[in-house]
């Protein structure tokens, strides 16, 4: 059985209510870190984290450079940076946008795929562009678990549809069932810290 160590979530249009629907259903003792990459304007830094904090028992943080990943935390990618992960620590970059996006879901997903391999879970939710599909494919190709919101339940189906084209074998779930599914597949206790993302096996 695979012991998962990280959940990365990508979304754009409609993302706030979709992410809220997922994290509302997670207990405060949830053993994994969640990382949310949502396209948004850089005009209101901190606002997304604030709004999500009102909806979840997890601790919500907008990522700062070299912040360590922690269980039971919801980490929000800051606007205007790419978010990378290595050995259980976040790194930010201002490198050029990828497919017009910064943060790019593909970039964070790929980084998580390479750092965590089969211990990564990637989730693509509602969105009005195709970012995230290549990253989700990389998570799946590295043996990780790919989940896609049922396009029929998505405020904008474009992103989940593109993700499904890239990863046809991804698990498709309606929004309201994602939290329950995560609780079921997540470990009961946080993985040992020193191992997090240290090695892909």
């Amino acid at each position, binding site marked *: 059985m695979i012991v998962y160590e990280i959940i990365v979530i990508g979304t754009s249009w409609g993302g706030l209510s979709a992410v809220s629907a997922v994290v509302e259903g997670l207990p405060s003792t949830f053993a994994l870190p969640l990382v949310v990459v949502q396209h948004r304007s*850089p005009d209101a*830094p*901190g606002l997304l984290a604030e709004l999500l904090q009102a909806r979840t028992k997890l601790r919500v943080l*907008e*990522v*700062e*450079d*070299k*912040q360590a990943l922690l269980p039971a935390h919801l980490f929000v990618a*800051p606007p*205007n*940076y790419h978010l*990378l*992960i*290595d*050995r259980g620590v976040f*790194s*930010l*970059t*201002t*490198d*050029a*946008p*990828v*497919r*017009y996006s910064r943060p*790019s879901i*593909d*970039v964070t997903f*790929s*980084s998580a795929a*390479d*750092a965590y*391999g089969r211990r990564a879970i990637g989730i693509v939710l509602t969105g009005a562009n195709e970012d995230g599909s*290549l*990253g989700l494919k*990389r998570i799946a*190709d*590295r043996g990780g678990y790919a989940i896609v919101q049922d396009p029929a339940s998505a405020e904008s189906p474009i992103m989940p549809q593109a993700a499904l084209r890239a990863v046809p074998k991804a698990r498709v779930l309606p929004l309201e069932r994602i939290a329950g599914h995560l609780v079921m597949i997540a470990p009961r206790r946080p993985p040992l810290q020193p191992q997090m993302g240290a*090695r*892909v096996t």
Partner: protein
Amino acid sequence: MTSEPVDAGRRREDRLRTAVVPRPTTHDSTPPLSYDPELERLEIELLLEGIFRQYGFDFRSYAYASIRRRLWRRIEAEGLTTISSLQDRVLHEPALMEQLLLDLSINVTAMFRDPTFYVAVREKVVPLLRTYPFIRIWHAGCSTGEEVYSMAILLEEEGLYDRARIYATDINEVVVHRARAGIFPLERMQEYTENYIRAGGKRSFSEYYTAKYDGALFSPQLQRNVVFSQHNLVTDRSFAEFNMILCRNVLIYFDRALQTRVHGLFHESLVHLGILCLGSKESLRLSDYETSYEELSGPERIYRKVR
């Protein structure tokens, strides 16, 4: 060298021009799936060690996740498949090293990036700067200079520029040269104008530049108190005492040990009550210097040295 020098020179110019402003990309560059992550890490360490010993550029303490990404972009662009094959070429071809130096050291920036930062500088820092008869500012890691011109404009509008001197430095001589030229892409002027207005700009932004060909040439007047020069935060020492140091979104490319070392350099380079400005997602919290500063603006990462 067999190629004709003028031609080679022009080719190099072309290469540098396209390289200096990294373009938005259509996809993320990643290693092939079959690549073993531990082998990859070993190869990257060997490459960086090789670059240091052969050329003297020290990228060994750069943040792994971001330098790795930039290396793969270059590997892909050269049509290679492994880090070792890049190492082979870089060690034998100084021209490729020059290219890679640009890849690894150019940080993308914008004029008045994070407009709210400039608002905070006007409100919280400018009143402090007014108390000095002469203001020395170090812009560390100035890249292509966008933020240096932004600061010069701000100081000019606040009536402080004539008693200020900005020392703008970067590891990379090519970008320092570029910054000194003061020409930025015309297609970004709309974005910069919006930033300028939101940053509390007091005039019309177009007063500061002249459209020329496809570039916006910034008024040489803005450069009158700027000294551009090459300086390496990793290996070079402090070179003066400053009232203010700006180093925004540069330390994110370093690992924590190097970040702490550079914070030491900044700390010894600031006068008592000197001001330190970091990027909006950079924190003193993870350095050894948190207690040496007080916050002037928490959200904008503006600090003042108190001990």
